Structure formats: structure tokens, C-alpha cells
């Protein structure tokens, strides 16, 4: 028996697809069914009612945290990538280049442990500020709450976004930027008005990926912040581990799918609007 190239290709890709189907598509289907099934076994939105009643505050908390983290990550990445591309002081650019990528592959759980110690009331950050005379010892407060989660996310995700952005900035036509500089525009203006609009798609992709990543992280909110309010990932784990309550946990899961779908749709609509403008 001789296989056609198509059949061979499908045969070669089938085992990989089978794993994705078994460990992603099937559980996804399972979570949807579980979320929309009532106690009597029929279709019901009861789990969503319960999830909303118990965790509506955490839904808002999660969205605000992730949006704020994306905003600050984007801002930091623009500053870093902009300095790397347009910086004129070779010493500063070199130092920045050597430094900024360090957290790139550091696992979230390690970042969480770092921040747990660094941002604590008696952590290295407050201790350094006290030693430098910037604050009084009594003014030291713990940052291990929503601020700690945002700080950890920004610290961890900025190198990723900055790396992609710096790559995109390095690839755009230098002549326009030089022309802008020659006409007397400051470097900040060249960055904001000439360079950034050209790399906006890259920035958006990186931020949408970061958005979904932050939405999925369990270790950071568990380790960095206290119990309430917290992010939806922690609530899901709690529903399962404390009550074995799959219905409510899966309803929360569907809410996180919707939040990440929202981010994806904003990205796709922007992409289509750009296609339309062309």
C-alpha cells in the first residue's frame, strides 16, 4: 500500500494532535459542560449565579490587576526598547542591554518568591530606602497585596515585551527616524510619533500574550498577596481543593476564557481595522 503525501502528513501529525485533543480540547469541553450543568443534570446558569455572587469582586480585581500590569509592562518596555534603539550614550545603552533581559526565563514562582522577600515590610526594598534616608523606619509598609502582584507581573513580563519591541524597532527604516531627528524633533517625539506607530502590531501581540499569561498564573497571587481580594486562579483552586466544587470553579474558568477572549477580540478588531485602512 502506498500513501499519498497528504495521508503521510496527516499520519505524522496525528500523534501530536491526539495529545492536544486529549489534554486540552477534551478538558475544555468538560469544563464547559460542567459550568453549564445544574444540580439536576440539565442546562442551567446556576453555577454562574453562585460564582458571580461569591466572586464578582475578584473578577473586577483580576481584570484591573491584569490591565494595570499590561499598561505598566507596555510603558516600561517602550522606555527600554526606545532607549536601546534611539539612545546615544553608548555606555547607558550597553548597560541597559546587558541588564534588562535577566527575568526573561525566570519562572513565575521564583519571581514570586523574590518579590515576597523584596517587597515585604522588612524586605530589602524598604531597608534600602531607610538606609538611604528616603523614608523613616516607621513609614515602611508591606507591598504584598495588589501592588505586589502588579510589580511581580511587570518585573517578569517586561523583558519579553521589550525584547519583541526592540526587535521590531531595530527592523524599521532608520532613514525616517534620522530625518525626524535632523528636522529638530526630540528623541522622545521621534519615538512616540515616528517609531511607535510602526511597531504597534508587535507591541499589541506581546501585550495580548502577556495578558493571557498573567490571567493564568496561580503562583504569584497565591504567594505574593494575602487571601482577599485575590485573583480568579486562586479562587478556582480554592473551590476545588476546599469544596470539590467543580461547577463553580468551571463557571469561574469560563469567565476567565471570556476575559481572555475579550483581549483577543480587541487585538483582532484592530488588526482588521488596519487591513481595511490599507
Amino acid at each position: 500500500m502506498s500513501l499519498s503525501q497528504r495521508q503521510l502528513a496527516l499520519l505524522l501529525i496525528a500523534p501530536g494532535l491526539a495529545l492536544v485533543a486529549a489534554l486540552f480540547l477534551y478538558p475544555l469541553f468538560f469544563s464547559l459542560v460542567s459550568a453549564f450543568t445544574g444540580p439536576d443534570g440539565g442546562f442551567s446558569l446556576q453555577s454562574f449565579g453562585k460564582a458571580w455572587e461569591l466572586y464578582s469582586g475578584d473578577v473586577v480585581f483580576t481584570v484591573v490587576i491584569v490591565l494595570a500590569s499590561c499598561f505598566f509592562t507596555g510603558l516600561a518596555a517602550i522606555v527600554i526598547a526606545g532607549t536601546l534603539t534611539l539612545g546615544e550614550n553608548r555606555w547607558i545603552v550597553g548597560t541597559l542591554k546587558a541588564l534588562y533581559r535577566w527575568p526573561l526565563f525566570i519562572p513565575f514562582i521564583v519571581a514570586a518568591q523574590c518579590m515576597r522577600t523584596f517587597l515585604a515590610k522588612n524586605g530589602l526594598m524598604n531597608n534600602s530606602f531607610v538606609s538611604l534616608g528616603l523614608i523613616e523606619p516607621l513609614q515602611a509598609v508591606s507591598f504584598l497585596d495588589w501592588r505586589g502582584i502588579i510589580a511581580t507581573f511587570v518585573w517578569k513580563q517586561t523583558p519579553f515585551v521589550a525584547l519583541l519591541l526592540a526587535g521590531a524597532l531595530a527592523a524599521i527604516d532608520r532613514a525616517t527616524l534620522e530625518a525626524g531627528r535632523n528636522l529638530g524633533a526630540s528623541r522622545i517625539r521621534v519615538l512616540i510619533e515616528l517609531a511607535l506607530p510602526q511597531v504597534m502590531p508587535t507591541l499589541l501581540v506581546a501585550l495580548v500574550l502577556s495578558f493571557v499569561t498573567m490571567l493564568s498564573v496561580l503562583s504569584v497571587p497565591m504567594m505574593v498577596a494575602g487571601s482577599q481580594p485575590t485573583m480568579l486562579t486562586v479562587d478556582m483552586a480554592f473551590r476545588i481543593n476546599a469544596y470539590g466544587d467543580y461547577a463553580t470553579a468551571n463557571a469561574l474558568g469560563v469567565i476567565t476564557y471570556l476575559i481572555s477572549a475579550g483581549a483577543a477580540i480587541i487585538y483582532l478588531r484592530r488588526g482588521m481595522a488596519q487591513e481595511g485602512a490599507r
Partner: protein
Amino acid sequence: MNGRAVMRLAAAARATLAAFLLAAFAFVLIGPLANLALWSVAERWYTPYKLPVSYGTRYWEQVFRPTGDAMASLGTSVWIAVLTVIVALALSIPAGYALARLKLPVRAFFMILFLLPQAFPSVAIYINVARIFYQLGINGTVFAVVLVHAAHGLVYSVWIAAAAFGAVDRDLELAARNIGASPLKTFFSVTLPLAAPGIIASGIFVFLESLDEFTGTFFVGVPQVTTLPLLLYNAAMGGNYQVASITALILLVPSVLFMLFIERFLRADVLAKVGA
């Protein structure tokens, strides 16, 4: 004061400001890591002391004792990561070749399908995987954890393998065919060796992903499988900052090494083709 002096002063002020900002950036970047390193050698550290009261390697000895929890966890983690790489590569080498070289219907759809496990909020998926595994009676086994890690790492290994095969010069394959090599022989003696650097890079990526993975193991591996990230979590939540910090440092080493050397593993021509 003449104009030149003013300009020199302004330049000096700008340089000082830039140096200050760079120092602040370095503090934010290095500070948390420095705090971690300090905790790993702090035998006693309590308020109001700004630095550890006494230093020592007591906790390092505790962690690296051959019978200690940490060594067992390290062994489990490495064993799981090795198995994950084997599973991921066994699935992604054929899949990557098919995606790069063969006429595949709805190719873009398949590429997206491999991406989906990474592009979805994973906690909601893992709780259901754990439930299914529990029904099958494989929850809490190394096998279950390897499957979860492999599914999670598959997007990297498949996409990078496809890019690596795509970057192999077709003329070299044709030359081998012309002098009489069979398609299979051509694949094993020309295509695969030329794509090997990219595939090895994808293997390292999958290895690291598995080593660092927390969420999936948290749901699927408990209570029997304790990898390093789970040990770190348990130590941190139990208030043992020294053991948590040392475990974190162990996990840090491969991550930082990979960050420093990734450009050598992944050639630019392969990198440019990833996801294409």
C-alpha cells in the same frame, strides 16, 4: 556664564539623570534577586536588622543532604523533564516535518491548534485534566505530570521543529535523492542532521518549561509527585524562607544560562521562521 558652559552643564545634568535612572532600574531588577541570595545564606534574620544577623551554609547543607527532600525533588524534576522532552520530541519531529515539508490540508488550523494550550487560561483546563486523570486512576503519577508538561510544551517543540525543517535547504535533499538515497535515508542522513540544532534548542526549551512548571503539577501531581517548584511553594508557604530561596536559586540557574545562550542555540534564520 557663556553659552558653551551652559550647554556643558545641561549635558552633565542629563548624564547624571540618565545614570540615576539606570541605577534605579538596576536596583529594581537586581534587588529582588539579591534579596533571594541573601535569604539563602541567612541563618538568622529578623527585624529590625536590615541585613542577616548571622550568615552560614547550614540550610544549603540541609538542602543538599543526599537524603533531603530537595535532592529527591530535584531528581523527580529532572526525571520528569527528561521524559517530557522525549515525549515532546517524539511527537513534534514528525509533526514539524509534516508542517514544514508536506502538503498538509488546513495547515494554519493545525499550527493554531498546537498553540491553543498556551493561549488559554490554563488553570480552568488543569482542574478538569486532574478530574479526568483521577477517574482514570493516574492522578499523582509521574506519567500524568509528563503528559501535562508535554502538552504544554508541544507548541514550542512543534513550531521550532517546523521552523528548523523549513530552514533546511531543499537542494541538499534533492541532491541526496538524485544520487539514489531513499526518502527515509534522505531524511535521516540529510534533513534531520541539518535541522538538529533547532530541534535541540526546542528540546532545551521544553526541558526548562517542564522544570519550571508549577500550575499543572499543582493539580495533577499532588500529593505524590513533588517537583522543585512544588517544594519551593511548600517551603515558602510554611515560612521556611531559606529552603524556599535555595530552591528558587536552583531553578534560577538553568533559566539564566538559557537566557544568556539562547542566541547560540537558535540561529536567526530558524528564529525568523518560527510560527510562519
